[in-house]
C-alpha cells in the first residue's frame, strides 16, 4: 500500500521513555538493550498504514504500548524516532499552530475515562472543541445539541458529567469527538471502563454511528472479542511491537506468531471465519443444491453445515455468483473443534 492513499502511516516508529540521552535505535534494538540503559520502549519499531475509511483496531494487553501508539498518531506524545504521516504531512514536523489547526479540523478522540470537563455541562463539553476554534455561540450550541441527540442524549444537555452514568458520559465524549466533523477518529479503549452490558450496547451504538459518519478510525482495545466484532483490520501488539496486522479472519486462521496463536486459541473461530474464506475453486466439480452466502460466519450457518450430508458445499458471493466449494469436514472442524 503506498502512502498516497493512506490517511495515517508510520515508519519505524519508536517511543522510548527514560532519562537522559537515548541510545541509538535500530530495527535490531531489543527491549533488553534499552532496559540496560534505564529506558523503556513503549512503541518499538512500528510501521503501519491506514487507508481512508478503514477501521484499524489496535489490540494488546495493558502495557503493550497501544495507547502510546495512538498518542503518537495524534502527537499527544512526540515520537522518539521514526515519522508519523497524517494525510501525507509529517506530523512531527508541524509547528504548534499547524498542529492545533489540524486537531481543530481533522481529528477527534474518545478517551477511556471520558476526559470530560467536570465544570461544564454535557452541552458545553460537546461545544468545547467548537469554542476552541472560535465558532460563534449560537452555531456551536446548535451543532452540540444536534450531536447530543445523535448519541441519544436529548434532554440531558444541562447535566454535568458527574450527574450522568458512565455510558452516558462516554456518549458525551463521543459526541464531543465528532462535533468538529473530523476525518480521523481515535478511540482509546472507549468502552473498557463500562460494565459488560453497557459495553455491548455502546458497541452497537458505535457500529450505528460508524456506518453513518464514514471516517478513518483507529480503535484501541484490550478485548479481543471487541476487536473481532468491530475491526476491518486488527494490529496485535506485544511489548511495543506489532506482532501481526491483518483481517480478523487471517489473524484467527493464520496467526503469524506463537503469541498471536495463543491469543486466538480461546476464540470461537466459527464466529470469525466466514464461508467465503473456506471457498476453494471448484476445479470442474459441480455440486447441486442450496448454496451458502460468502459473508455469513460459520456460526450463522452452523446448523446448515452440520445437517447437510454433502462433502462439499457451494458458496455464493454477495452478488449471487458462484464463488467456490467449501470442504464440509474443514468447516465442521472449525465449528466443533478438531476431532479428538
Amino acid at each position, binding site marked *: 500500500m503506498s502512502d498516497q492513499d493512506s490517511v495515517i502511516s508510520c515508519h519505524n516508529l519508536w517511543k522510548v521513555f527514560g532519562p537522559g540521552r537515548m541510545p541509538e535505535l535500530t530495527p535490531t534494538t531489543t527491549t533488553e538493550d534499552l532496559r540496560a540503559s534505564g529506558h523503556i520502549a513503549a512503541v518499538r519499531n512500528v510501521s503501519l498504514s491506514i487507508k481512508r475509511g478503514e477501521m484499524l483496531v489496535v489490540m494488546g494487553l495493558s502495557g503493550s504500548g497501544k495507547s502510546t501508539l495512538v498518542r503518537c498518531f495524534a502527537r*499527544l506524545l512526540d515520537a522518539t524516532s521514526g515519522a508519523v504521516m497524517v494525510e501525507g504531512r509529517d506530523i512531527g514536523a508541524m509547528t504548534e499552530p499547524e498542529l492545533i489547526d489540524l486537531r481543530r479540523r481533522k481529528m477527534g478522540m474518545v478517551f477511556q475515562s471520558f476526559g470530560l*470537563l467536570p*465544570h461544564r455541562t454535557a452541552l458545553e463539553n460537546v461545544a468545547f*472543541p467548537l469554542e476552541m476554534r472560535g465558532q460563534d455561540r449560537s452555531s456551536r450550541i446548535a451543532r452540540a445539541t444536534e450531536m447530543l441527540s445523535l448519541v441519544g442524549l436529548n434532554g440531558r444537555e444541562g447535566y454535568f458529567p458527574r450527574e450522568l452514568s458512565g455510558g452516558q458520559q462516554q456518549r458525551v465524549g463521543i459526541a464531543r*469527538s465528532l462535533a468538529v466533523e473530523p476525518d480521523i477518529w481515535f478511540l482509546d479503549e472507549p468502552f473498557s471502563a463500562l460494565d459488560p452490558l453497557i459495553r455491548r450496547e455502546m458497541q452497537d451504538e458505535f457500529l450505528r454511528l460508524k456506518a453513518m459518519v464514514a471516517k478513518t478510525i483507529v480503535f484501541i482495545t484490550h478485548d479481543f472479542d471487541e476487536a473481532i466484532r468491530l475491526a476491518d483490520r486488527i494490529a496485535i501488539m506485544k511489548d511495543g511491537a506489532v506482532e501481526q496486522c491483518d483481517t480478523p479472519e487471517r489473524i484467527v486462521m493464520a496467526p503469524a506468531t506463537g503469541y498471536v496463536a495463543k491469543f486466538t486459541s480461546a476464540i470461537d473461530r466459527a464466529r470469525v471465519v466466514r464461508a467465503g474464506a473456506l471457498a476453494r475453486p471448484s476445479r470442474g466439480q459441480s455440486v447441486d443444491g442450496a448454496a451458502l452466502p460468502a459473508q455469513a460466519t460459520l456460526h450463522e450457518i452452523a446448523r446448515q453445515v452440520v445437517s447437510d450430508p454433502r462433502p462439499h458445499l457451494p458458496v455464493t458471493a454477495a452478488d449471487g455468483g458462484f464463488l467456490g466449494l467449501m470442504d464440509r469436514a474443514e468447516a465442521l472442524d472449525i465449528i466443533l473443534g478438531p476431532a479428538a
Partner: protein
Amino acid sequence: MTVVSLHPAPAAFDQRRTAQALLLLAALLTVGRNVLPEQLVRLPEAMVIPFAHWINAVFAFLRDDLGLMTLTRTFSDVVEFCLDVTANLLYGKARWPRVGPIPWVVIAATAATVGHALGGRRLSVLAGGTFVWIALMGQWQWAMETLSVIVVAAPFSVLLGLALGTLAWRFRAAEQILNPLLNIAQSLPHFAYMIPVVVFIGVGPKAGAIVTIIFSVPPMIRLTLLGLRSVPPEIIESGKMSGATRWQLMTRVRLPAARTELLIGVNQVIMQSLAMVVLASFIGMPGLGQKLLQLLQALKIGLSFEIGLTIVLLAILLDRMSKAWAHRQPVHHATDASWLKRHPHLAAWIVLTVFGFVLSALHPYFTEVERKQALSLAGPIDAGVDALLTVIAPVAEWLRWFLITWVLIPLRDAFLWLPTSAVLVFVAAIGWRVGGRRSALVCLSFAMPIALSGWWDRAMITVYMVTVSVVLAILIGVPLGLIAAAKPKRAERMLLLCDTMQTFPSFIYLIPVIMLFGVNDVAVIAAVVVFATVPILRYTIEGLRGVPPELVEAAEMSGASRGQMLRHVKLPLAVPTLLVGANQSIMFSLFMVIIAAFIGTQDLGQEMQRALSAADVGKGLVLGFAVAFIGLLADHILLTWSRDRVALLSSRSS
C-alpha cells in the same frame, strides 16, 4: 519497592552502629560535663557569628540604597486604598467612597444568604447568627476592622499564590527555588514576619494587612501547584485534541479542573489570614485581636471570653463557608426554569437587602448598635468563673506549685545544663539513625546555626517547653485517640471536633488557661498542650482508621483479642501516621510557645517580642530562623522516619 530481607541489610546495620556510637559520645560528653573544656559546654562569645548585623546591613542596603522602600510604599499604597474602601463600607471610616457604613442587618442578611447558597440551612443560620451576635454584643466596629483586612488581604494572597504556584508548575527551576523557601516560610513563627514589615511599612492596619498577605501566601502556592499537577491527564489530552492553545488549555481546562484544590487553597489563605490578623494586634492592627490582647492583659476574663467567642464563631464560619464552596458541585437546572428558579439566592438576597436598608432607615439601631445598647455576658461569665475558681483554686494552685517546682524548673535547668557539644552530637546521632550520614548532616546544619547565633540558652528553653508540651500532648492525645477510634461514630465526632479546634486562631487557647492558671509558665504549657494535643489526637484516630479492614479481619480470624489486635496489628500499622501527627504537634507547639511569650517566658519568643518592639530586623529574623530550624530539624527526623516505616510496611505487604 526494595525487597526487605529477613536480616537487616548491612547499610541499616552500619546506620544503627554509627548512631549508637554517636549516642555514646553524647552521653559521655554529658556525664563528663564538669571536666569538659569550657568551649565544649558553651560556644565561646568570640565564635558567635553576628548574623543579626549582617541581616541588618542587608536590610539597610535594600531600604536605603536600593530604594526598595519606594517599591514597598507603592504596593502598600495600593493595599491602603483597598483597605480604606472596605473600612468605609464595613464600618464607615471617613474615606472614599463615603457611602458606608453598610447597616449590620444588611451584612448579616448577606452572610445568611451566602451561607444558604453554599451549605444550606445550617450554614445560613451560623452565618446570619454570627453577625447578629457580633452586632448585638456591641463588637461590630472591632469585628469589621478585622474583617476589612481579611477582605483585602485574602484576594491579594490568592492572586499572588496562583501566580507563583503557576510559575513553579511551569518552570522546574522556579519550583526548586520556591520549595525550600516555602518549607522555611511555613515554619517561621508569626512574629518573624512582622518585624521586617514594621521596618518597611510601619505599624497599623496597613502593616497588618501586608503581613497577613505575606503570611498566607505559602499554602496557596502549594495548593496551586498540587491542583495543576493533579488534573487527570485524559482531561488535558481531551483539551489538546479539542485544539486548545496553551492559554486556552490553562484558563479553560487546567484551572477549572483544579477548582477543588484551588478553593481549598483559598480556604487555607482565609484561615491563615484570620490567625495572622488577630496576632497583628502586636503591630498596632486594631480590631478583635487588639481588644482581646488588651482585655487579657487587664485580666478581664468575661469580656475577653466574649471576644474569644466572636473570633471562634468567625473562624468556624469562614472555614465552613470556604470549604462548602470548595466541595460544592454544580447542579443542572431544568431547561425551562424561570429566572427566579435559576437564581433563588440572588432574588432572596435582593429582597433581604432592600428590607434591611428600609429597617435601618426607620431606626438607627439597625445600622449600628451603640455600645450602651449592647448586650453583655461579661458579668455572669465573670461571676461563673469566680465561682469555678473558688472551687478549683486549691487544686489549680497545687498543680501549679507542683509542676513548677518539681517538673518544670528541674527540667529547664537540666536542658540548660546540657553541654552544647553533647546536644549537637545527640542530634547527629538521631539523624544518623533515621537516615544515615545525609540526615545527620541535614540535622547538624539546622542545629549548628542556632549554636553559632549566640541564642543557645533561649533556644534550649524553647526546646524544653516544646518537649514537655509534646510529651504531655502525646500522653493525652494517643489514649484519647484510642478511645475515640474504638467506635466509628465516636471517631467521626472527635475528628469533627479536632477540625473545628484547628480552625481557631492559636491566640484563643490562651483565654481559658489564663483564666485557670493566671500568667506564668504553667499557663503557657497548658495552652500549648491543648493546642498540640489536637493534631496528635486527630492522627491517632486517622492512623487507626486507616488500617486496611482485611488485615483486621485476618487478625480477628486468627483469634486476636482486642489488646493483641491493638498491639500487634493496629498500632504498628498506624505508626507512620502517628509520626506525622507528632511532627505537626511539634510545629503547633513551637508556634504557640512563641505566641505565648507575651505572658512572660524566657525563651526565643520573649526575645522576639523585644525585637519586635525595637523594630530590630536582624535580631528578629535570627530568632525567627532559630525557631524555624528547630521545627525543620524535628520535621526532617520524624518525616524521614515515617517514610521509612511506610516503605517497610508496603514492601512487606506486597
